[in-house]
């Protein structure tokens, strides 16, 4: 096997993850950071963390995923830019080849992936509503003055969870306040919230999908033992949380970069120095036609690197000339 490493980057709305993977699939380092609304800075920070250790190592391929994949793909010089669903599915299969259902709950979105004989056959994703996602829990934890880390442990202490309306986070909030005023204990309310999130997930994202074991639960919210238990109670069977539950997307796209290595040959990775570059992104409304596309343009040290957002492809062409 060739010497070197594969890099996988998952730029989500809430967290930015980077994994350094050895050929074959073993993770040798992982970085988990908050995106804090600045995907470029957080990716630079993540690369800075691994640079000292891996700067001399050959990078065989780079895969990026997540909602910021296009932006970060352009900045890093990624070889594979994949959607989150495929990346999460590939990582789940690497962790547990026999898995049949993947539940994934992230900060802003949640998904379900159904797998048969080692191949994804169906998926579901939440629509615009974030009621069944991590940000819902974040908000409610904040309201209860709890850190999100304590949240799961407190839920596990509950003997008698209260029922909280989970259809909508606005309803859930007023319902929760009502239950607090009625005098229910904190752990019962927290456990009730976990159950509400799970019900919401199963009724929206997983609507009409058959959940068959083995079930894998991944994404940032999988750290929450309360949610895991609520899933197990609702589904009636065991739910597993993989070791790298919070960096499955990054791992998955590193695996995809390895899988497609033959197709691209040499990596387009721009090197670890990208952490020191000045990267500017500007947006403008193209007025050449009534579509009024919002075009994004990326400049590195004042050289245009990439552009997108246009429907006609005009700005993307310029991008190809600039880099190719």
């Amino acid at each position: 096997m060739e010497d070197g490493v594969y890099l996988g980057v998952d730029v989500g709305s809430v967290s930015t993850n980077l994994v350094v993977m050895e050929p074959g699939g073993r993770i040798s380092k992982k970085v988990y950071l908050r995106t804090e609304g600045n995907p470029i800075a957080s990716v630079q920070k993540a690369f800075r963390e691994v640079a000292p250790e891996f700067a001399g190592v050959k990078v065989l391929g780079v895969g990026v995923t997540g909602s910021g994949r296009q932006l970060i793909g352009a900045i890093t010089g990624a070889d594979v830019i994949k959607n989150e669903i495929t990346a999460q599915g590939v990582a789940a299969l690497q962790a547990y080849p026999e898995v049949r259902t993947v539940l994934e709950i992230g900060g802003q979105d949640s998904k379900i992936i159904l797998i048969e004989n080692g191949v994804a056959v169906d998926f579901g994703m939440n629509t615009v509503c974030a009621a069944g996602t991590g940000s819902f829990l974040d908000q409610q934890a904040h309201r209860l003055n709890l850190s999100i880390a304590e949240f799961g442990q407190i839920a596990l202490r509950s003997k008698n969870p209260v029922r909280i309306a989970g259809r909508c986070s606005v309803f859930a909030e007023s319902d929760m306040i009502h239950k607090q005023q009625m005098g229910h204990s904190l752990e019962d309310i927290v456990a009730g919230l976990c159950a509400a999130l799970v019900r919401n997930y199963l009724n929206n994202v997983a609507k009409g999908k058959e959940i068959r074991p083995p079930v894998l639960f991944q994404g940032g919210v999988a750290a929450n033992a309360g949610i895991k238990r609520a899933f197990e109670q609702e589904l009636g069977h065991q739910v597993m949380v993989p070791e790298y539950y919070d960096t499955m997307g990054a791992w998955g796209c590193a695996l995809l970069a390895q899988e497609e290595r033959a197709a691209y040959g040499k990596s387009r990775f721009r090197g670890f120095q990208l952490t020191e570059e000045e990267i500017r992104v500007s947006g403008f409304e193209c007025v050449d036609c009534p579509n009024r596309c919002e075009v994004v343009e990326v400049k590195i040290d004042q050289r245009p690197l990439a552009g997108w957002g246009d429907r006609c492809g005009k700005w993307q062409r310029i991008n190809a000339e600039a880099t190719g």
Partner: protein
Amino acid sequence: MTPVISGPTGKELLNAGVKTSVDEACLPVKVFLGHCLTLRNRCDCFLVPRLVNINRKDYICPKFMGLPEMTKQAVGKQPLVIWKSEKNCALGSPQAVPAALRQGFSARRIKKGLQKAEAAFHTYHRLLQQGLFPAEAEQVLGGGAPPAREKNGRRIGLIGHPYCLYDPFLNLGTVNLLHRYGFAVLTPEYFPPRQIEDELQILAKPLFWTMSQRIFGAFRLLCKEKVDGIVYLSAFACGPEALTGELVKREAKALGLPLLHLVLDEHSGEAGLVTRIEAFIDLLQRKRRFSCV
């Protein structure tokens, strides 16, 4: 009399349409009104058909019945001519031609004009049944050469109402995206109406809406054509589709055919839509690759 036709759908047009239409209107109606508004300063009068039914026992969606009124509301004072069918005469019959359009024409010329229009309509649909898309068919009708199509490639079915499938702005370029991934795209208009009708026999009760019938029939035919998967585009707040969508979903599940149901909305969540289509295509490709091995 010169007909003036609106251009392609765009952001400004959609915004204008959304602003003038009632809340309950579906996205395509809002787009239609947007088109009307772009014509407001370029024409003297609007011609809007009142479509109720085109077959004997089924109906076009009720939003179409109210289209002339909604247009009137949107365009204000501008005169509006409604083309509607009367008792015992179909929309395409000479008697149905609105008086405003008849002025200065003999009955014979009107009849001839209608025949010509009908012939063009049939030629157009024959082109669609050869697998052409509306824009391509129009090119061919205008004397252009038909585009080359690969016959043995991978194929994907795309179903939904025609105004969702063939408006690249509304569906955020779904057709282009599928073509870019190397799929031939088959739509309901590819199938002759008679074949679609035959497929409806399995239903316990006929579907009320003409468009729903076409979507469901085409779905069954696409299954028989052994396409790799089917993408179902529906418009947000479409009533009939709530039912058809469920029917299609159940049937696809029973057959084990990959189906992606996408709901189009004015918020144009392009990233979400593209992510779903990409993931769906990956799913089809990986399925093919790994089941061959």
